[in-house]
């Protein structure tokens, strides 16, 4: 198809072509591929790891790994899926290694306790509080649930794409997302501003039980 005038054809070669150029020895092609996808790869890493330096290290490790392994890319998935998979795996490796070390989760616990106590509700306009709470809550999820929710709910990937990236079945992605959301609910219900008004969030305590909720008992005004 003809490029519209003014569009430089070499500005956006397909990912697969860039990767092929890289494998053939083009020293710039891989850097271009990274530039093109870095924001999304970064979003996955920072959301999964919740730490800038860790996330940057994970992305860097992943890119070097992809750089070296590009020759073995078979093209049975999209290049972006492949790149994402390598980044996600690098992140999960880091999480596993961190989990093997003594946990330093005190700040998360404190943030969640504060949030659950309703103290941040007084300042619903504070985005950073919301972001911190969400980050802290995500960190408490099992890794599998966390990475599924990061991809599907936070970054908007389809279940099928997330399954491809995570190397698991779509059904597993769905059930991990479902379990993750159910776990997050009691921790994050106080942050939802668009839905149930804070004063009527009568079901917050219902998240963890199956008994009738006590009306309005959980929201000090």
């Amino acid at each position, binding site marked *: *198809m003809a490029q*519209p*005038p*003014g*569009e430089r054809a*070499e500005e*956006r070669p397909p*990912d697969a072509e860039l990767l*092929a*150029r890289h494998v*053939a*020895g*083009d*020293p*710039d092609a891989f*850097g271009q591929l*990274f*530039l093109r996808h*870095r924001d999304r790869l*970064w979003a996955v890493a*920072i*959301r999964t790891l919740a730490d*800038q330096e860790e996330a*940057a290290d994970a992305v*860097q490790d992943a*890119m070097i790994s992809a750089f070296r392994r590009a020759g073995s890319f078979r093209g049975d998935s999209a290049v972006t899926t492949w790149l994402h998979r390598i980044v996600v795996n690098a992140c999960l490796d880091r999480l596993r290694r961190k989990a093997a070390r003594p946990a330093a989760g005190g700040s998360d616990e404190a943030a969640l306790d504060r949030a659950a106590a309703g103290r941040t509700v007084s300042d619903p306009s504070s985005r950073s509080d*919301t972001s911190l709470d*969400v980050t802290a809550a995500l960190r408490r999820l099992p890794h599998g649930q966390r990475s599924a929710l990061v991809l599907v*709910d*936070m*970054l*908007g*990937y*389809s279940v099928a*794409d997330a399954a491809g990236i995570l190397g698991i079945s779509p059904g597993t992605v*769905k*059930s991990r*997302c*479902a*379990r993750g*959301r*159910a776990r*997050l*609910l*009691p921790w*994050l*219900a106080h*942050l*939802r*501003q*668009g*839905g*149930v008004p804070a004063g009527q969030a*009568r*079901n917050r305590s*219902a*998240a*963890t039980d*199956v008994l*009738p909720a006590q009306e309005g008992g959980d929201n000090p005004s």
Partner: protein
Amino acid sequence: MTRHVSTAALARFREGELGQRRAARVSAHLSRCARCTDLSAELAGITMLLASTQAPAMPERLATRIQDTLAAEAARRVALDPGTEPGRRDLPGRAGPPRRRLSSPVAVRALAAAGAVAVLAGGGYLAFSQNTPSTASGSAASRRAGPLSGAGGQHAANQPATGVPAAGPQLLYGHGKASFAPVASGINYRPATLTQQVTAALLSAQTMPRPTTAPLAHSAASASPDVRQFGGRTVRALPGCVGRIAPRGRVLLVDVARYQGRQATVIVVAPPSAAARQVWVVGPACSASSGDVLAHRSIPGG
């Protein structure tokens, strides 16, 4: 009264992950239990909350560090195996003399910046369409130069094909159940100003003459998808992309534009049950099967 549904079961129900009989029981229970219905809405709210939490942008120093590492890796590769140096082999897509080194990270950044300048300098907001039927009045035409760019409503360098409609045809998506009409604002959206730019674009889109033609028939729309041109680009994947990004909710804006100087489409959706509008910036690869999401914001509705 049947027993309430646990959060976990409700979450699985919402994902269609319960068995048929159990799903039917949950469904029946939900139809008469306000408490569990609320709980279900709260679960939906978790998804919206996660979607509206912005990931911090990659700090430039970290991006540079990785780019430098990759450049070093490339240099090392050449040093280890001079046979792979470009020019010594037939590289795909690289026939002829060696290209200028436009694709080094620095050069690409400079190029992107240059593109952004061109867009800003020439990017008049063309809220008028050749496809727009004759009902488009003079007053509508007088609004064509919108408030979104520095220069007036000249035909911009980034809208090369003359007569490219700025308000596109109605396109069907979501199995033909809904339609949207893309616009091409010529805006170069930027992360720092995305919210303001989207708000302005929404305002302009509201004053834009709407095509009153019936949506393209589904068969016609899919008959020759490759030829669909809009905003100087092929947009054959746009309906699939919109269907993927906005499976539910009302599509408020589909702007075939730029983001940080690169081709991108901005999609604004009013979700069915949320006050906040969801802004998705997607790259050219966005289609029914891939999101290619470059950025996401949640902006207050109103």
